[in-house]
Structure formats: structure tokens, C-alpha cells
């Protein structure tokens, strides 16, 4: 079983990386970029084979470790 996790900054939280990237894309001549936001992407291989249990477990991992819930949101997808 695989879990795919996206960790992104909460709306309103400053994203210095996104700002610099969008600036750099502009300097490279890509003119149509309005905004860039950078987040983290994690892939986990799990032993668990029950999708419901896997989701609950990964959710707990996110709250405990993988996301900094003070400033970040996360989203979990479970894949067989």
C-alpha cells in the first residue's frame, strides 16, 4: 500500500521560496506565471493493507511529524 502526501503552507503564510521561484521564472523569460507556491511531497510504502487503517495511521504521522500544523496543511491519498 502506498501513501502520497502533499504538505502545503496554510493560506496567508508567507512562502519565500515560491516568491523567489516566480521571480526567477520571470527573469528566465516565462512571463505568464502569476504565482508559485512550494510544498513538500512524500511517498510512503506501507505494510498495512487495509486502506481505512492506512489512512488513519498516515493521518496521525502527518499530525505528529510530517507536517508542521502550525503553518502547514496536509492531504493524504492512499493507493493500493
Amino acid at each position, binding site marked *: 500500500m502506498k501513501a502520497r502526501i502533499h504538505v502545503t503552507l496554510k493560506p496567508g503564510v508567507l512562502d*519565500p*521560496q515560491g516568491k*523567489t*521561484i516566480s521571480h*526567477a521564472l520571470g*527573469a*528566465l523569460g516565462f512571463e505568464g506565471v502569476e504565482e508559485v507556491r*512550494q510544498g513538500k511531497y512524500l511517498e510512503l510504502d506501507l505494510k498495512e493493507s487495509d486502506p481505512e487503517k492506512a489512512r488513519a495511521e498516515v493521518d496521525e504521522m502527518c499530525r505528529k511529524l510530517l507536517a508542521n500544523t502550525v503553518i502547514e496543511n496536509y492531504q493524504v491519498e492512499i493507493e493500493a
Partner: protein
Amino acid sequence: MQTAVIRFPGTNREKDVVMALEHATGHAPRVIWHKDASFPDVDLIVLPGGFSYGDHLRAGAMAAHSPVMKEVVRQAEKGVAVLGICNGFQILTEAGLLPGALLRNAGLKFVCRDVCLRIETAESPFTTGYQNGQVIQVPVAHHDGCYYADDEELKRLRDEERIAFRYCSAQGGQDNRSNPNGSRDEIAGILSASRRILGLMPHPENATEPLQGSTDGSGLFDGLTRALN
């Protein structure tokens, strides 16, 4: 020897290398702002340490794609020597002037401390001030210094004797603290095929005066001065 030191937004160790070069050559290098319109005629271009563009996305990525780097490539093709220290090394790999990449340190933390380096080849303008196998002590200060190249590339670097420095213990061997960042094959610095481009993570420029605690870095700048004069 005429030198240009290039400064990007976020470059922060230019003063250190300017001091070391001034010490070695007797005169101050030119400091170039990345947006400057013209590029001076020089024998050596230095890409100093720092956090160009905040290390955002990947360390060195944005600077590597900036217009001034096109000029650096042109100059390098003409045979001008290029030295990339720390962030400069990261920029050189991102720009494709040196092979491989610099990943996050294996310990995940920024590391600033003295390390020992073994000189693996004195055959380059950058290392002629040293002897093969000599061990020197200089500091490192970086977050993304874990050198990676695939097996094929690594073999090429070894076969062509382009590994300039390896991390080692004070005795020249290895112990559990000698490699500060998990670099493959203990690599601290590499040369281009032409041997006119050097990238290294450590900071020889911070070890050029007795008051700094070590003068082992002077060999690089003194050697360069002799080789390029």
C-alpha cells in the same frame, strides 16, 4: 593575476575570498554585481559562498540560470580559470560546468566546523601549491554539501584524476567524523576535464591567517597566483 568575484543576491562570503585573494596577490579583486553590464578581462573568476537567491528551490539553481553565468561559461571556454566555493560549487554543478549535484547533508543539519582534507592531485592551477597526499585543515559551513554523482560519472572522475580533495581524518584516513556531509567517495572538491574549473565545499579562504586558527588554505591562493601569473 586579475580576478573577478561575482556577487548574486544572497551571496555572503565574498568578503572572505576577497581578503584571501588580496593577501595572496597583493591587490584587491574586482567584485562584480550579477547585473553589471560589462565583464572585465581576468585570469580567474570566483563564485563565492553564500545563499544566492536564498537557496530556494535548490542551492545554486537560480544563480546558475542567470545571464551572468552565460558569460562565465564563455570565459571558461576561453580558458579563464573558474573557482566555485561552497555555494559557488553548487552553482557550477547546477550550471553543468561540473558534473554531479550537491544534496542536503546526510545529517540534515547545517554544519560549520574544521575538517581535514587530503590533496588528491596537485596537477591543477588550484592545487599546485600543495603536494599529493598532503592533509590540510580548513572549515566547512554548509547545509547542502553532500556530493552525488552516479557510478559512471564517479568512475570518470577517478580515472581522470579529477577529484581534487577528499575529506579525511587528521592522519589522512577516515573516521566517523571525517566526512561532514555524507558525500559519495568522501569527495570535497572536483575539477573539470580541462582542470581549469574547481568546485569545492570547504572554505580555504577562512584559513589563510594565523589569527583564523589555520593557514592551510593559503596554499590554494598562493598556488593559483603563481600558476596564473
